[in-house]
């Protein structure tokens, strides 16, 4: 794993238990994981790779303010799922979700939010904004399996020719800039273009984190409910 959390492994499709992704072995499933905690990133990464999903590094490098400038660096990068922490310095997972849904390039990518706090209002808000699911930390294998399930469905639908996989960035109608290729061989590491986003670093280095006076993740009443998630949007 590189210092900024970029990691990718080639998936061996015939080792996946229970589901047949596609006839083409080169079809790889890429997950972008965003979390300011080194510990959590390592755990998420291992959880996902244990299910044969490829984990890429930090989204923030690419989701800068200048979308047009960054869109070019995405040629060839395919993202099938974004999983993000809620409480992060500088930008919450909710804010990231909004940015993604506002972006013509990224809005079709399913987003899952994780949070250590089981707050109904927070969960509702995220689901309403378009998050596919909400996981209460600590993340367990059962949580990740659930995510994998609905990702599988989506890819299968795409392969049945029902209009194409909505998650692929190569949907040219959605792009304002040059069309990327996605089914060609994927880069083994992400492009090293310097981050243009003000959120330069997602590492928990204190000098770079931003503490706002009304922190969105400041203490609030949490529910005692043992339920780990309350709603799950279904694919139609």
């Amino acid at each position: 794993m590189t210092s900024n959390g970029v990691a990718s492994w080639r998936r061996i499709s015939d080792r996946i238990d229970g589901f047949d992704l596609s006839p083409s072995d080169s079809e790889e499933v890429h997950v972008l994981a965003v979390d300011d905690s080194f510990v959590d990133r390592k755990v998420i990464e291992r959880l996902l790779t244990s299910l044969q999903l490829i984990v890429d590094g930090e989204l923030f490098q690419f989701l800068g303010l200048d979308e047009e400038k960054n869109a070019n660096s995405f040629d060839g990068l395919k993202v099938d799922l974004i999983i993000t922490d809620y409480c992060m310095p500088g930008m919450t997972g909710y804010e990231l979700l909004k940015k993604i849904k506002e972006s013509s390039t990224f809005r079709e990518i399913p987003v899952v939010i994780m949070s250590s706090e089981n707050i109904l209002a927070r969960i509702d808000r995220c689901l309403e904004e378009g998050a596919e699911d909400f996981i209460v930390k600590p993340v367990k294998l059962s949580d990740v399996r659930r995510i994998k399930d609905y990702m599988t469905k989506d890819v299968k639908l795409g392969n049945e020719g029902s209009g194409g996989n909505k998650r692929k960035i190569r949907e040219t109608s959605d792009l304002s800039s040059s069309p990327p290729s996605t089914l060609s061989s994927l880069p083994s590491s992400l492009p090293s273009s310097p981050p243009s986003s003000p959120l330069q670093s997602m590492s928990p280095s204190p000098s770079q984190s931003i503490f706002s006076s009304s922190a969105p993740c400041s203490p609030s009443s949490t529910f005692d409910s043992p339920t780990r998630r309350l709603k799950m949007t279904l694919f139609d």
Partner: protein
Amino acid sequence: MDNVIQLQKKLVDYKTSLFNEGILDDQFTQLQQLQDESNPDFVVEVVSLFFKDSERLFDELTKTLDQQNIDFNRLDAHVHQLKGSSSSIGAQRVQRVCILFRNYCEGRNIEECLKCLQQLKREYYFVKNKLETLFKLEKQIMEAGGTIPVQ
């Protein structure tokens, strides 16, 4: 091979006591289940990250509490991080002190926050010691040619 069997039993007993005493919780078991031949050091790696991260956070907490005007939001943000990582590795007692600590941050209670920091450090070094002993035992078993028993 007798030695291996003895060591394996020692390990199982030790691990069981850690769970029984609430030092570790189910999340630690989750991590162990993620360890396999292709990721043989996964647990040690995650725990090492936790140690490094925690010690950095203790420095930050100490610094923040040392200020003339304590920034309780900043304090809370650090404790929140520690709560998260301790929860992710199953260090239950550390996590619980973090929850308490956050309540005192919210209440802006300097006295109690200072006490919490001390308590946090105690719990942290306690679990660190336990985990290091655990890893040592595992290493001994491997070196003696045995395998780590799966609970």
